[in-house]
């Protein structure tokens, strides 16, 4: 177990190193950073002096080493556009994105799992068929379209929900949260539905097909033959066996929710990291882009690590150190 975690940590470090390499090369290949920083009237001598001062004349490996060293201590340089430390800006924006991602993940799980279980148990039921057909729409519609449609109905036509921004915010130390005000929640509803709808349908379909699969197994048949109640068979035995793939997909999807909140954040003018990233792209603000890339990779790595650990919690077969099959019958 400990060995496994250590191995995964080393793998994670390797992944992060590689991502750092990619994001660092952006600085070198997407134009000359000095040109981005100075005005047109700056002389060549001044440019050279700046280049020397910033260490841009050092060999690649030295520069890269310095980059990694600073990144490890949470320093990602200064934004070209805003002239502020990137780390500071990310920390400011992070609560908005994380709250949005978390609420939409919870939304999609809380609805998706029960809907999937229902559709799996009542395979030929009318409601199951409706759920399946509707979920197909959910999977096929592009996110931005859902967002725009929601705004059209609930903000423009019905004037029920705000169409942009985070609403009322409350400071908790560094973290500005919208989860403590009614206004904040109202602002959160449409973006999280937009972001979570695809995940919802995905989880529902996954749980459904896994349930169908598990319900065919011998141990479910045997559980019925033992006279266990339907509740025990369905939720105790069947649902738990569907959890491993569901955890895997949910974990991966949580990563993508954070990463692809970009579109939703743009549609709803949500002041999160995604929106900042998109602005950085239009102004070629490389430090922000590079830092964003690193951060998202970091989230993925952490989530995957948690997912791997959850397998151990769910499936006893993976807990190798509890002993091997023994005794012959």
């Amino acid at each position, binding site marked *: 177990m400990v060995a496994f975690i250590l191995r995964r940590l080393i793998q994670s470090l390797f992944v992060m190193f590689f991502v750092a390499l990619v994001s660092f090369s952006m600085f070198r290949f997407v134009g000359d950073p000095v040109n981005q920083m100075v005005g047109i009237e700056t002389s060549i001598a001044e440019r050279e002096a700046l280049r020397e001062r910033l260490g841009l004349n050092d060999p690649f490996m030295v520069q890269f080493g310095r980059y990694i060293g600073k990144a490890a201590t949470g320093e990602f340089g200064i934004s070209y556009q805003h002239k502020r430390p990137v780390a500071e800006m990310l920390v400011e924006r992070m609560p908005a994105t994380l709250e949005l991602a978390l609420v939409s993940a919870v939304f999609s799980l809380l609805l998706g799992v029960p809907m999937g279980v229902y559709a799996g148990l009542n395979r030929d039921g009318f409601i199951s068929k409706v759920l399946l057909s509707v979920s197909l729409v959910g999977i096929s519609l592009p996110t931005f379209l859902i967002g725009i449609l929601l705004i059209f109905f609930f903000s423009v036509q019905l004037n029920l929900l705000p169409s942009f921004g985070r609403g009322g915010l409350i400071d908790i130390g560094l973290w500005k949260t919208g989860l403590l005000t009614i206004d904040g929640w109202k602002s959160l509803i449409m973006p999280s539905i937009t972001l979570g709808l695809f995940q919802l349908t995905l989880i529902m379909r996954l749980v459904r097909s896994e349930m169908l699969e598990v319900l065919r197994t011998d141990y479910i048949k045997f559980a019925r033959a*033992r*006279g266990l109640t339907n509740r*025990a068979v369905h939720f105790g035995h069947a649902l738990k066996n569907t959890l491993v793939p569901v955890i895997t997909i949910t974990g991966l999807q949580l990563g993508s929710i954070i990463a692809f909140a970009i579109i939703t954040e743009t549609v709803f003018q949500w002041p999160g990291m995604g929106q900042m990233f998109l602005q950085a792209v239009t102004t070629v603000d490389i430090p922000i882009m590079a830092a964003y890339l690193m951060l998202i990779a970091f989230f993925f790595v952490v989530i995957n690590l948690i997912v791997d650990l959850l397998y151990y919690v769910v499936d006893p077969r993976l807990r190798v150190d509890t002993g091997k099959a023994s005794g012959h*019958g």
Partner: protein
Amino acid sequence: MPLLEVENLVVEFPTRRGTLTAVNDISLHIDEGEVLGVVGESGAGKSMTGAAIIGLLEPPGRVASGRILLEGERIDNLPYEKMRRIRGKRIGAIFQDPLTSLNPLYSVGRQLVETIQTHTDLSPTQARARAIELLTEVGIPAPERRVDQYPHQFSGGMRQRVVIALALCVNPRLIIADEPTTALDVSIQAQIIALLKRLCREHGTAVMLVTHDMGVIAETADRVAVMYAGRIAEIGPVREVIKNAKHPYTHGLMGSIPSIGHDSERLEQIPGSMPRLTDIPTGCAFNPRCPHAFDKCRTVRPDLLPIEDSWTACWLYDGEEGRNKEASKKLVAETKADAVLEGNNG
């Protein structure tokens, strides 16, 4: 009153290309504490009969007609919840594959405890004590430690012992054992059968032992039913059926068992294979493969007739067909069942 009575049971599977009849009008009974063996090739309807009795036919399969009575009470038309209370408590079941019969995510103790608590009022501590007791009874060493282990930590034979413990845990009156040893190593099969036999005798549990292994039947069963294409071909006391097989199909089954000390060089085999459910021949379903078939066999379906100590569905024994008396006598004389019995009792 017999423990279990099956009367004219018909099990059907509606499919797109018409309805298949997997079990076609069979009747049998099992007495208290009795072991009834059910043999036949795969697809003969043995497992279907078992599944119909415990009310677990896989949809769209259904009991189309007939009755099933447990201790005189009709159980084939009970609502799900009432049938659930009977399953496990009054009728236990053991399935073919011990490797897949246990839920891999729960310890064997948990699975035992949940079954015990479903059917009794025992407290969790009492149920756990009972679980350990059961594991001891089925011969699992160090049960106090093993009770908290997971199925993957048990070998195949040990897992089948756990399955037997699960089937017996609230003392059902009847156990449906569907090929309980087929998936196990030969060396372990005998142990499991001996265990099952001993436990059922101790608890006075009746067993319906579904298998295609004549050896297991010869060793374990009190009576045996031979099934062919959804019908019973022959049913009677095990010695009578094995030593004195009447139906040409039973006769063929006996002949196809290899036995040591028998001087025949070749194994007898039944030519052809069992018909598919979609095209069961008219008359006696066995007639295309039967060496003794005559005209009547091809047109009229035979019903079970009492011949000596057992019942047989074969026209050869119909009194009016005098010309076949000779053939039937010859058939009985030819039976090599003595060798079979000797071969398997050792």
